[in-house]
C-alpha cells in the first residue's frame, strides 16, 4: 500500500505560462459584464444561471476549453479552465447554465462518447447553447447511490426508461441529462449493472420535470420522472453496465475545483468593503484566518488540478479538497456575524452585505451535501488510509 505520507502529498500546482494573460482577459470581460449584477445576484455564483452570459463566454472561447479543437474546444489543459473558473466564481458570475456541461459532461462525452454524440453535443457545449444536468440521486437512493432503482430496458425501438431522479440541479433548464440507470437487474454487487445515458429532456415523451422549491424559496433542483420514456439505442454513454466506474472517473474534477471554496467569495468581498468603509480594524485577526484558509484551499485545489492535467489519479486528494472546502464555506456566514453587527436581510433596499449574508446563510447547508456528503467523503478518506 502507498504510504500515508505519499497519499497526502500536495505538490504546488504550476499554472502554464499563458495563464496570466488569459486571466487578465477574463477579468477585463467580467469588469464589463458584471456591472449590471447586484451583490445578491453575484452571491449565487454557480447556483445562478444565465444562458446569454454563457453564450458570451462561449463566444470568447472559454467554454469546453479542454475539449478537442475539432469539436469546438481549445484543446487546452484543465489548468487553463481552472483560471477561467476561479475568475468567474470570485466575481460571482452567473455560470450555472454552463457549469456542469463545461466541468464534467463535456469532458466525459469527449472521453467515452461515440463519434455521433461528440459531433452533436460538444460544439453546442462550447458555444454555451446547452445546459446539462446529472441524474444520480433517487427518492430511495441518496448517499447510497448504488442502491438506485430506476431502470433502462433494452427493446427493439431503444431503451425504455422508468423511475424517478431527485434533486437534479438545473433539470428545468437543461436540454440533456446524463443519468445513471440500472440496466442489469440481477447484477451483483449492486453497483454493477448500471449504465449512463444521455437523455434529451426536451424532446422525450414520458419525461416530466418538476421543480422543487428549496428553503430559500427558489427553484433550481428538480424531480424528474420517467414513465416508459423511450430513448434511442445510441443514447447509451460509454459501455453498458460500466456506469459506476464511469461516474467515478468524473468525481475528481467535480470535487476538487475552485467552486469548492469560492461559493462564499462574494460574502468575503462584501465584508471587506464594509470594513473598508468603516475603517474598523478590530476584525483583522478573523479576516487573517479566513485568508489563511482561502490561500491554503487554493494551493490544494491547484495542486489537484495540476495533477489531473498530468493524468494522475487524484480521487483521494479531490475528496480532501471538497471536505475541507465545504467546512470553510459553511463557517463563513457565522464568522461574518461575529465580526459585524448585521441582520441577514433579503429586502431590496437592505445593505448588500445583509442580503448576501442572508442568501449564503441559507445556502450553506447544501455545501456539504452536493457532490458527496461529508460523511461519504470521510468514509472514502478512511478507506484510503486503510482503516475501514
Amino acid at each position, binding site marked *: 500500500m502507498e504510504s*500515508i*505520507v505519499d497519499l*497526502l*502529498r*500536495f*505538490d*504546488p500546482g504550476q*499554472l502554464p*505560462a499563458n*495563464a*496570466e494573460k488569459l*486571466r487578465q482577459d477574463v477579468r477585463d470581460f467580467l469588469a464589463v459584464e458584471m456591472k449590471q449584477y447586484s451583490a445578491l445576484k453575484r452571491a449565487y455564483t454557480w447556483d445562478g444561471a444565465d444562458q446569454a452570459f454563457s453564450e458570451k463566454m462561449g463566444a470568447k472561447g472559454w467554454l469546453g476549453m479542454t475539449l478537442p479543437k475539432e469539436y469546438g474546444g481549445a484543446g487546452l489543459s484543465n489548468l487553463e479552465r481552472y483560471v477561467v473558473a*476561479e475568475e468567474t466564481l*470570485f466575481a460571482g458570475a452567473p455560470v450555472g447554465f454552463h457549469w456542469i456541461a463545461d466541468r464534467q459532461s463535456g469532458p466525459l462525452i469527449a472521453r467515452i462518447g461515440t463519434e455521433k454524440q461528440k459531433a452533436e453535443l460538444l460544439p453546442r457545449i462550447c458555444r454555451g447553447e446547452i445546459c446539462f444536468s446529472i441524474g444520480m440521486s433517487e427518492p430511495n437512493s441518496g448517499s447510497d447511490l448504488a442502491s438506485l432503482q430506476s431502470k433502462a430496458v433494452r427493446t427493439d425501438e431503444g431503451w425504455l426508461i422508468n423511475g424517478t431522479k431527485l434533486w437534479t440541479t438545473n433539470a428545468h433548464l437543461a436540454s440533456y441529462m446524463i443519468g445513471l440507470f440500472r440496466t442489469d437487474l440481477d447484477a451483483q454487487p449492486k453497483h454493477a449493472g448500471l449504465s449512463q445515458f444521455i437523455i434529451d429532456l426536451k424532446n422525450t415523451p414520458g419525461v416530466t420535470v418538476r421543480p422543487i422549491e428549496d428553503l430559500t424559496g427558489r427553484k433550481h433542483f428538480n424531480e424528474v420522472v420517467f414513465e416508459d420514456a423511450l430513448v434511442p439505442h445510441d443514447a447509451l454513454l460509454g459501455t453498458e453496465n460500466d456506469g459506476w466506474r464511469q461516474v467515478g472517473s468524473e468525481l475528481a474534477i467535480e470535487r476538487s475545483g475552485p467552486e469548492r471554496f469560492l461559493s462564499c467569495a462574494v460574502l468575503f*468581498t462584501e465584508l*471587506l*468593503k464594509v*470594513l*473598508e468603509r468603516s475603517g474598523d*480594524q478590530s*476584525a*483583522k*485577526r*478573523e*479576516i*487573517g*484566518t*479566513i*485568508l*489563511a*484558509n*482561502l*490561500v*491554503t*484551499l*487554493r*494551493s*490544494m485545489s491547484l*495542486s489537484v488540478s495540476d495533477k489531473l492535467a498530468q493524468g494522475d489519479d487524484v480521487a483521494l*486528494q479531490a475528496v*480532501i479538497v471538497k*471536505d*475541507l472546502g465545504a467546512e470553510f464555506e459553511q463557517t463563513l456566514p457565522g464568522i461574518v456575524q461575529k465580526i459585524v453587527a448585521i441582520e441577514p436581510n433579503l429586502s431590496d433596499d437592505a445593505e448588500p452585505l445583509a442580503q448576501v449574508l442572508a442568501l449564503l446563510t441559507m445556502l450553506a447547508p447544501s455545501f456539504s451535501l452536493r457532490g458527496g456528503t461529508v*460523511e461519504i*467523503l*470521510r*468514509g472514502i*478518506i*478512511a478507506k484510503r*488510509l*486503510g*482503516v*475501514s
Partner: protein
Amino acid sequence: MSDISSMLEDSVTRLFSDKVDREFLQEQERTGWAAELWELTDELGLSSVLVKEESGGVGGDWADAYEIIKGCGRFAVPLPLPETIVARWLLDQANITAPEGPLTLIPSMEGSDAKRIPWGRNAVAGCATQSAVSGTSVRLVDFTDVVFAEETNLAKEPRDNCTTMGQAAVGEVDLPEDASFYLGAMIRSAQISGVAMALLEQAVMYSGERSQFGRNLNKFQTVQHNLARLATAAASLDSISRFAFATMDNVGFKDDAKTDVRFAIAAAKSRASECVDLICALSHQIHGAIGFTYEHSLHFYSRRAWSWRSEFGGSSYWANTLGDIALGLGSEKLWGAITALGINEATTTD
C-alpha cells in the same frame, strides 16, 4: 519532484526512522544533546542543502529543504537542523563564512538581550537579520563564551535566554530586516506539517491494534471519521507549507510584504498554528489514556506541536499579519494578490 528532493526525502526518512525512536527520544530528554545524531546528519550534508555546490553544499533549493525540515517534524528530531539550514543560507547571502557545527536563529534581539533562542546552549553561533544604516544586515553571534539562562519549550527542546552577546560578524544582505523571523516561521510550519503526519500515522496504527467491544477501534465509524479529519488537516498543512517553500524559490523576498514570500509564509504559519489544536486533540482522543502516558511516544509529537505553534509568531500574530495584508490590499486588490502569489514574474512575462 526533483531528483535531489526525492533523494533527500529517502535518506532523511531512512536515517531518522532508523535512529529516532521512542527509546532514543526518552534518552535524549534525560541527557540533552544528541551529538551522535548531529554527526550523522552532518555526514549527509543535510544542513548545507541550500549552500551552493561550489561552496561545498548540496546546491538544493527550498523545495528540497522542505523535505528535510518536514522530516525533522515527522520524526521529532531533537536537533536544530532546520535552524542550521536557514542560518547557513543567510550566511551565504551575507558572504559570511559559516562556522562548523550546529547554528541557530535568534528570534528577537534587543541590544544584547535575546530570549528563547532555540538550542542556544548547543549551537556554536546564532544569526538574525537586522536593520542596518543602509538596509539589512545579517548578524552572526559567536556563542562560545555566552552564558545562557536555560529554559526549554514543552518538548524539552532548549529555548535559552541571554543578556550578553558574544563577538559578531556582520554582512549586508538584500533582504528585509525581518527575513530571519519569517524564515523561522516557515521552518516551524514545515515541522508542524511533519508532526501532523506523525500524529496521523500513530493514530492509524494504534486504531488498528487496540480492540474494544470486540472489534478494533478502526472499525468504528466515529474513529474512522476522526482519522479522516486528521488526514485532511495534515494534507492541508503539507500543501500550504510546500507552497510557501516553493514561493521562496519562485519569488523570495521582494519590496512588498503583501505580495512576496512573506504573504505565503504568513498563511502557512497561521494555518499551521491554527491546526495544532485539532491534530493533537484528534490523535490524543484516538489513543485514549495510553497516549497520555510518558511511556507512550505520542507526546514527543504533540508537545512539539503545542510549542512550535507559538514559536516565531503564533496564530494570533500571523492572523493579524494576514489581516493587515488583506485590509491593506483591500477588496479591489486582494484577489489579484492571491492569484499572483507564488508566480515568478520573470518566467511569466517572456
